[in-house]
């Protein structure tokens, strides 16, 4: 167990935890705008952490050219998730707003 594998275990476990939180939020929140908050943030950070953890663990056998290039490719996925996920969140929220889904507010339930 090198330091790098311990760090990557921490990253992957943290990512799984945020995935878990996002999923619970997806089930429990009252309307789809609030569910958007759960998935848009939780999945972004969860996937980001898991992917970074895998990119780090991929290097634990020593730094060779092939494994470094593979890690760079894995980090491309992380950058892509970082860019794409908020945009998809925004697109769905705007779609809901334009389609006329009224946001759930507290006063309505009282």
């Amino acid at each position, binding site marked *: 167990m090198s330091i790098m*594998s311990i760090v990557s275990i921490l990253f992957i*476990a943290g990512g799984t935890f945020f995935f878990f939180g996002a*999923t619970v939020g997806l089930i429990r929140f009252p309307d*789809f705008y609030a569910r958007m908050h759960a998935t848009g943030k939780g999945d972004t950070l969860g996937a980001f952490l898991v992917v970074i953890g895998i990119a780090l663990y991929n290097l634990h056998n020593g730094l060779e050219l092939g494994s470094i290039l593979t890690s760079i490719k894995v980090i491309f996925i992380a950058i892509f998730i970082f860019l*794409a*996920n908020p945009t998809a969140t925004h*697109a769905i929220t705007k779609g809901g707003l334009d*389609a006329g889904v009224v946001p759930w507010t507290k006063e309505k339930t009282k």
Partner: protein
Amino acid sequence: MDTFFITTGVILGLLTLVCLYRVVAGPTVLDRIIAVGAIGNKTTAILLLMGMIFGRVEMFVDISISYALLNFIATLGAAKYFRVRKSIVPGSKYLKEKGIS
């Protein structure tokens, strides 16, 4: 270390099943789109974990990138498609007419 990866993969798979509940039961179409997007994010991670388990990350990373790209484009397309249809929820009024908030 393989045990850890397998455990993480199984947990993510179970979370995918939980998301599937929202796909089936979601009141509006947009809930389903969100849940499908969440499943896609988890699948991206699961594919990479599978690559770690099989020791072929350089192969699985390509599949993972393609999956993430197609998932993103599918989400955007679905959101745009349901945006031009004005009403998703039956009986709701068009928000822009009465001003937002």
